[in-house]
């Protein structure tokens, strides 16, 4: 029977079991890298670098994990802070909200026809959101966190989080309706 995340974390803390941490990384790498790829608009190299930094920080700060949320959620919180730090250092421009739904983020030739897959359209639409709005939506809908949990993870007031979600959903509706 495979060990739970809590058991693996205990093994890392008590026995400095690196194999246990390796197992934690394997279980959470896909979710973490996917989350960061969404924030970095498809820049896979940047997302993987940030994911690696996130996991190293998680290893160093493992004692601070209190178990109030899942380990994956805790990782996403660290990842979001890492991403914000990266944005501040690089002083990137805010996401262009007028970016069309079918414009790929990697700079390849744009496809004038919308995708027939609504999931891909949703992913592309979410990539046009501001990072904090995208994170708020992902945490509350894709990761299943409550608004309160997501607000704590993002380090913002509950009202601010709800505003992010409202604005993000309004923008998504307008983009998705354009291709309905």
């Amino acid at each position, binding site marked *: 029977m495979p060990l739970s995340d809590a058991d693996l974390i205990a093994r*890392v803390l008590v026995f*400095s079991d*690196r194999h246990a*941490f*390796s197992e934690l*990384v*394997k279980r959470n*790498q*896909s*979710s973490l*890298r*996917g*989350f960061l*790829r*969404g924030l970095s608009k498809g820049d896979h190299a940047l997302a*993987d670098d940030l*994911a*690696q930094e996130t*996991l*190293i920080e998680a*290893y*160093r700060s493992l004692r601070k994990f209190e178990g109030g949320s899942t380990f994956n959620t805790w990782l996403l919180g660290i990842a979001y802070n890492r991403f914000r730090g990266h944005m501040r250092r690089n002083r990137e421009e805010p996401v262009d909200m007028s970016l069309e739904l079918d414009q790929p983020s990697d700079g390849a030739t744009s496809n004038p026809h919308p995708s027939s897959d*609504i*999931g891909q359209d*949703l*992913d592309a639409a979410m990539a046009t959101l501001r990072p904090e709005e995208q994170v708020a*939506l992902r945490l509350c*809908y*894709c990761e*299943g966190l409550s608004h309160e949990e997501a607000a704590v993870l993002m380090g913002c007031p509950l009202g601010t989080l709800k505003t992010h979600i409202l604005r993000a*959903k309004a923008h*998504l*509706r307008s983009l*998705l*309706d354009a291709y309905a």
Partner: protein
Amino acid sequence: MDADDSKLSKLMKSCKTEYIEDAGFTSRVMAALPSDRRIAGNRRLLLLLASLLLSVPLSLFLAGPGFLPGLLAQVRLSIERPVLVLPGLSLGILPVACFALGLVVAASLGFGFVRRVLR
């Protein structure tokens, strides 16, 4: 508006990020991890002990050449003539307390200095 919101919410909840193959990512992370936490803990203990050992001769040196004979004389006196009265007891214990305090301060300073140097 409510129906659209409900539809969007359902769509959002059904979103599943495509699985990303590991492709060596975990190995790279493990290679980049800091050294063993247990070894780091032992290193801290060794530094503390080394600082403590270094602080003993340093404290004696700073206290002056007559300190150690005087301290031993005080301790011998306290044993030969045990003092039960509080003021007498505090006189006898004073050099010992100062010495112990000096040890603690020197060890703390030394430990902090060595940590900064080795970081």
